[in-house]
């Protein structure tokens, strides 16, 4: 099992969810996050006072899938979240040691 963690532009969240549902993804976790990468920050101006905002709002999606589905899911996220402009985000893939469904006690693949 792998954890796919994707940082994307907030307005692309619905596109990504719609792209993942047909692939059999049963659930995912979303958080609002802030950060910076090559896009760096943005400038805000209030009555002539300029503030450089270093951390830009992004959305983080976390989804755990069986190892053989990883490529498919990653491709789908890329396709849905891409705008070809700087700041589209990143995807990280991590190993998952163990999964437990709290209600039934099922483990690993059965618990996904």
């Amino acid at each position, binding site marked *: 099992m792998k954890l796919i963690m994707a940082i994307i532009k907030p307005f692309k969240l619905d596109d990504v969810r719609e792209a993942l549902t047909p692939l059999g993804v049963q659930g995912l976790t979303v958080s609002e996050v802030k950060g910076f990468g090559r896009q760096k920050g943005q400038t*805000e*101006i*209030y*009555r*002539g*006072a300029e*503030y450089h*905002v270093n951390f830009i709002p992004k959305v983080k999606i976390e989804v755990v899938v069986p190892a053989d589905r990883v490529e498919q899911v990653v491709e789908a996220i890329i396709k849905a979240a891409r705008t070809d402009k700087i700041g589209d985000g990143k995807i990280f893939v991590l190993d998952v040691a163990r999964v437990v469904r709290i209600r039934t006690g099922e483990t690993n693949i059965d618990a996904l």
Partner: protein
Amino acid sequence: MKTLLQRAFWALPLLLCTFPAFADDAPKVDSGDTAWMLSSTALVLLMTVPGLALFYAGMVRKKNVLATMMQSFIVTCLVTVVWMVAGYTIAFTGGNAYFGDFSRIMLTGIADKWDQPFILAPGTDVAVTNTIPETVFMMFQMTFAIITPALITGAFADRMKFSALCAFMVLWSLFVYSPIAHWVWAPTGWLNALGAADFAGGTVVHINAGVAGLMCALVMGKRLGYGTDNMAPYNVGLAVIGASLLWVGWFGFNAGSATAANGRAGMAMAVTQIATAAAALGWMAAEWISKGKPSVLGAISGAVAGLVAITPASGFVIPGPALIIGIAAGVGCFWASTWLKHLLGYDDSLDAFGVHGIGGIIGALLTGVFAYGPLTADKDHPDGIYIGGLEQLGHQAVAVGATITYTAVVTLLILLVVGVLFGLRVTEEEEREGLDIALHGERLG
């Protein structure tokens, strides 16, 4: 019982015959004028709470939102009591050219002729008879006395001690607002006698508050982290609601200053709307050209600048000049708030001086240029009392200069006294923590 009713029945026609004769002798309260002034009073109160409270609170950081709202709210309460005790009598009784007398201290005597038209400066040769009761006049003027010191709070937002603020506001209302209101608006006041035109408070309210704010900003110094920390507004949306409420309430402020429901009130309302829109567009255009984006905060700031500048002129000017006054205020206040402030290096947090001081000066001077005679014509002055031109501009300049000088000096003295007694500024730790928690023990969500 039957005989009593019969007697009453026969007496009725007699009463109906005699009553109109009695009414013709004594001047009567005009119900239309009174209804409008009651409404205007409520509209002007709406400008401070919640209008100004939201406008200012939306522009500060999240940790100071409640404290900023509290400032407008408590100034409303403090000045209400101060006005009742002594402020009204200093401002609007005859007295001399500089100060009223004490005949209305604690509002003594206001109940004597409670249902009769109210005469300003009775017994003098400049007496002015109104068509509304004195209670309504006193209340309408009270709402002006409330918003003026509340405007100053924008200059020292984020850093003044609450105890010091309360003391400052009481003293400022008594020793700065009331005397200047007397000079300009009491029939016996020296600027009124000189012929300075200020319909709704360009000098009394806006220049006065703006310059006092500048003095506060200079004396109290910059906010911690000014120029380095991010001081972006917590919620410009709140400020938009606040500015919009100010706009609506301002019809009471300007059109209400006719103290009657008449043609001048109508003209004041029309020019207020036109100048406000023009100023919002003026600020927006200036910002769009010089900074690249037309900001929401800029548009609403421009609208307030237009409202400020048309305040002294409303009731004296007609629509064409109102458009010019609006554009001049929008561009002028943009320049003052974004360039002049940074050039001179003072931290007027929410631009009390940049918008109210500069907008007030622009409006007060342009009133002297554009005053349209027929609006103030009467049988002794067929061409009008106030006519735009060099002479009127001179009177306006004297009023502007006198207001700036007096408010600057007396505000500094009050700051000195309050500073010695209470200390003006919160501690560094309290300022970093935020005034909401440090001063009021509360937090916004």
